C-alpha cells in the first residue's frame, strides 16, 4: 500500500480580489506521477507556488508526510525535500551547471568549494537517472533541454522526495520529451513523488497515474488515470465539449509572400540561414519548430522591425525589404505578435487609443486631428464583433484579460485591406475558448483570400489550420509538407530536432 506523502486542503488565494485558488485540495502518494491539469489561468501554478513557498495561501492547510507544514520561502520547501522546476527556469546564466546545481548549499570547506568532488557527485547522479549534464558548461551555452536537465539535477542533488514540474514539455522537441518521460519513470520507480503541471491531455494519459483537474481556481475532478479518457478530461478541463475546427482542403491562388534566401546574423550567430518560403493567397502556412529557432527573427524581418542580412522579400511581386515598417503595413500586412505586452499594446492606454495604433488610420482622422466619435464607434464595433469583454472602450487595456487583449489586437490588425496576416503564437496564454475563436478567425481570413503565416510552437495548432507546414530549426527550413491525412509526425519531430530528413 502506498503512503500519502502530501495533502493540501481548503487552499484559498486571491490576487487583487480575484480568486486564483478557491477551496482547492490535492492528495499525492509516494512513487506516483500526479498530473495537475487545467487551462492557462486555472490556478495550477499558483497552487504549486504556495506549496513551494513563493506565495502564501490566504487560508488552508498543507500536510507533508503526516505533519502540518508551514512554508515561508523556497528555502523551507527545499529543507523539507520539496523541489520545483519553474516554467521559466531559475538558472543563473553566467554560472556553470555545477555552480547552479550546488547554489545555496554549504558544502565541505565552505566558502572554499571543492568543485571537482562536487562535479563527480553530480556525474554519479546524472548516470543513475540517465540525465546527461556537463558540470563545467555555462548555462548560457546550453540548449533549453540541457537547461531543464540542470534544473532537475538541482532537485535530485538535494535529494528531494517531491518534484514539482511546471509545464516541463513546453520547451522540448518530441524526442526530447520521450527521453524526459523515461527519466520521470525512473524517478517514480525510485519512490519519488512527482507533480507535473500541464494543459496537454495526451501527456497526462501517457505518463500520469493520478490527475487533478483545476478550472477557474476550483478542483473539478481528482481521479486515477484508469477511470478517465482524453474526452472526459477535456470536458473537465474546459467545462464543455470541444467543437473541432473544420478546415476544407483547398489550394490557394497566386504567390503573395515570397521570402527568398533571407539570412540574418545576431551576435555573430546565424539566426536566419538562407531561409526560403512562399505563401499563396488563400493559404495558411504554418511554421513549426521549438521556440527560439529563428521564429521571432523571421516575423520581425518580414515586418521590417529587424533589418535583414541577406536575401529579399517580395509581397505580391514587389520587393519590400527596403521599405519602412509603416510602408509595409500599409501594403496590407497585419501583425499579431507573440508578446502582446511588449509589442502589441500600450497597457496603460485605453482600448480606443490602442485601436488608433493601426497603420491604416485614415478612418480615424479628420483634417489631421483625431475624429473621436469615429474612433469610438470603430472600437465599439470591434468590441461587439469580437465579443471583447470590457466595461467600456475607455478603460486601460491592462484591466482586460489576456484573451480579450488578444482579440483587440486582432481586431486592430486584421482589417479590410489586409492581405497578409503574420500570426506569431496567436493563442499563447489564451484559454481554449479564446484559442478556438482566434483559429477560426484565421481560417475565415484565409477563405476570404488572405495569406496567413502562422508561427507557433504548438504542433496541434499548426496542424489544425495550416494548409502547408514548414519546419524551422536553427533559422533554416528543414522541410515543407502539405498538411493532409498522411502527414508523418515522426518525420516532423525529427526535423524539429534538426535532423536532415529526405
Amino acid at each position, binding site marked *: 500500500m502506498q503512503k500519502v506523502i502530501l495533502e493540501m486542503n481548503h487552499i484559498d488565494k486571491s*490576487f487583487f480580489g480575484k480568486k486564483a485558488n478557491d477551496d482547492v485540495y490535492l492528495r499525492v502518494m509516494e512513487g506516483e506521477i500526479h498530473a495537475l491539469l487545467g487551462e492557462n489561468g486555472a490556478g495550477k501554478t499558483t497552487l504549486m507556488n504556495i506549496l513551494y513557498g*513563493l*506565495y*502564501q495561501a490566504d487560508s488552508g492547510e498543507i500536510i507533508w508526510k503526516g505533519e502540518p507544514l508551514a512554508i515561508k*520561502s*523556497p*528555502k523551507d520547501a*527545499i*529543507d523539507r525535500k520539496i523541489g*520545483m522546476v*519553474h516554467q521559466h*527556469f*531559475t*538558472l*543563473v*546564466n*553566467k*554560472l556553470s551547471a555545477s*555552480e*547552479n546545481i*550546488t*547554489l*545555496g548549499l*554549504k*558544502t565541505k570547506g*565552505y*566558502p*572554499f*568549494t571543492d568543485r571537482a568532488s562536487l562535479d563527480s557527485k553530480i556525474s554519479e547522479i546524472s548516470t543513475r537517472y540517465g540525465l546527461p549534464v556537463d558540470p563545467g558548461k555555462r548555462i548560457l551555452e546550453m540548449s533549453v533541454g540541457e537547461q531543464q536537465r540542470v534544473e532537475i539535477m*538541482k532537485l535530485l542533488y538535494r535529494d528531494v522526495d517531491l518534484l514539482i514540474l511546471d509545464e516541463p514539455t513546453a520547451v522540448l522537441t518530441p524526442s526530447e520529451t520521450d527521453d524526459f518521460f523515461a527519466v520521470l519513470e525512473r524517478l517514480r520507480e525510485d519512490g519519488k513523488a512527482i507533480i507535473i503541471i500541464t494543459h496537454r491531455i495526451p501527456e497526462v494519459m501517457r505518463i500520469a497515474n493520478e490527475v487533478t483537474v483545476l478550472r477557474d481556481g476550483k478542483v473539478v475532478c481528482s481521479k486515477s488515470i484508469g477511470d478517465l479518457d482524453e474526452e472526459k478530461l477535456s470536458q473537465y478541463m474546459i467545462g464543455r465539449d470541444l467543437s473541432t475546427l473544420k478546415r476544407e482542403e483547398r489550394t490557394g491562388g497566386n504567390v503573395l509572400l515570397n521570402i527568398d534566401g533571407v539570412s540574418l546574423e545576431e551576435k555573430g550567430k546565424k539566426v536566419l540561414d538562407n531561409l526560403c518560403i512562399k505563401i499563396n493567397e488563400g493559404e495558411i502556412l504554418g511554421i513549426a519548430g521549438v521556440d527560439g529557432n529563428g521564429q521571432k527573427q523571421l516575423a520581425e524581418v518580414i515586418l521590417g522591425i529587424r533589418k535583414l542580412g541577406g536575401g529579399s522579400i517580395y509581397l505580391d511581386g514587389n520587393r519590400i525589404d527596403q521599405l519602412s515598417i509603416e510602408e509595409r503595413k500599409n501594403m496590407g500586412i497585419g501583425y499579431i505578435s507573440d508578446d502582446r505586452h511588449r509589442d502589441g499594446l500600450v497597457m496603460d492606454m485605453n482600448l480606443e487609443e490602442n485601436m488608433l495604433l493601426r497603420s491604416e488610420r485614415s478612418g480615424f482622422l479628420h483634417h489631421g486631428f483625431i475624429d473621436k466619435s469615429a474612433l469610438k464607434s470603430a472600437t465599439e464595433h470591434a468590441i461587439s464583433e469580437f465579443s471583447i469583454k470590457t466595461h467600456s472602450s475607455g478603460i486601460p487595456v491592462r484591466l482586460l484579460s489576456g484573451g480579450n487583449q488578444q482579440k483587440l489586437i486582432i481586431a486592430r490588425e486584421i482589417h479590410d485591406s489586409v492581405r497578409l496576416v503574420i500570426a506569431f503564437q496567436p493563442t499563447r496564454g489564451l484559454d481554449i475558448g479564446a484559442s478556438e475563436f482566434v483559429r477560426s478567425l484565421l481560417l475565415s481570413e484565409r477563405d476570404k483570400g488572405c495569406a496567413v503565416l502562422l508561427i507557433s510552437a504548438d504542433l496541434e495548432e499548426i496542424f489544425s489550420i495550416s494548409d502547408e507546414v514548414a519546419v524551422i530549426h536553427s533559422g533554416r527550413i528543414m522541410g515543407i509538407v502539405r498538411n493532409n491525412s498522411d502527414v508523418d509526425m515522426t518525420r516532423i519531430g525529427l526535423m524539429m530536432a534538426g535532423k536532415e530528413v529526405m
Partner: protein
Amino acid sequence: MAELMDIIASFLASSLRQAAPLSLAALGVAYAEKAGILNIGEEGIMLSGAFFGFIAAYFSGSLFVGIISGALGGILISMIHAFMCIKVKANQTIVGLALNFFTLGLTSFLFLLVFGQNTKLPSVASLNPITLPVLSKIPVLGPVFFSQNILIYILYLAIIVFFVVFYKTEWGVRLTAVGENPRAADSAGLGVNATRYVSCIINGVFGGLGGAYITLAQLGYFQEDIVSGKGYIALVVVILGRHNPVFILLSAMLIGFAESLQFSLQTMGIPLPSQAFSMLPYLIAVIVLLLSAGKSSSPAFLGIPYERDKR
C-alpha cells in the same frame, strides 16, 4: 637612462596615489553592483567618508580614528541608499543622485557649523609612508609600490581578498547569482536582500576609505565638494575594470596617470587655461569607455529591486 627611470618611477608613484581613492571606492561599488545594487551615490559616500574621516582625525588627533570614522561615514550614506533601494524599492539612480546633493549640503553645513568662516583652513598631518622591508628594495617598482601609506596597503590587501572572494569562493558564486537572477537565488534559498545589504555595507566601507584617503593621505584638510567628481569616476573605473579587482586597479591607474599628467602639464607653462588640462582624466575615461563599448560585464538585474510575491 637613470634619469628616465626616475621620471617613470615618479609618474608611477603619482599615478598610484591618484588611483588609490578611485580603486578603494571602485572595489566597493563593484561588490555592490555584483549583488545588483546600482550606486550612483558613490560621490556622496566618498564625500561623507572624507568629511567624517577628517573631522574625527582633527579632534582626536589620531589618524587611525580618522580612517575608522571615514569608513563609518561611508556606511552612513550607503545604508540610507540601501534602505531606499532594497526596502522602499525606490529608483536607484534617483536615490543615488539625491544622496550626492544631500551629502554635499550636509558636509558643507556641518563644516561651517564646526569651524565657522575662516581664512585659514583647519588641517591635520597627513598619513606617513611606511616603507616595507625587502619589497621596497625591488629596483624602480619597490619604492613606488612599497613605500606608501597604510591606506594603499589596505588597498593591496583588499584587491587580493576581493579577487579570491569573487572568483575562488562560493560567496562569489552566490553574489553573482543574486545580481544575475535574484529569483533563482531566492529559489536556491539564498537571502537576496540580506546579500544586498551586506554588499551595501562593504560599498560604504570602501567608499568611505576612498573619501578619507583624499583628506587624510592626500591633502590633510577638508573643504566644500572636496571629492569633486571622483565618485563618478569610480563608477567609470568599475565599468572599465569589468568588475574585476585587478583590472579595477589598472583602470584606476590609467585615470590616475591622466590626473598626474595634467598636473605636470599645468606646471609646464603651456599657454592654455588650466581647465583644459583638468579635462584630461575625464576625456580619457570617455575615450576608453567608447573603445570598450558593447562588452558590458554588469549583472542582468543591476538596479532592479527584488520582489518575491510579484505576479
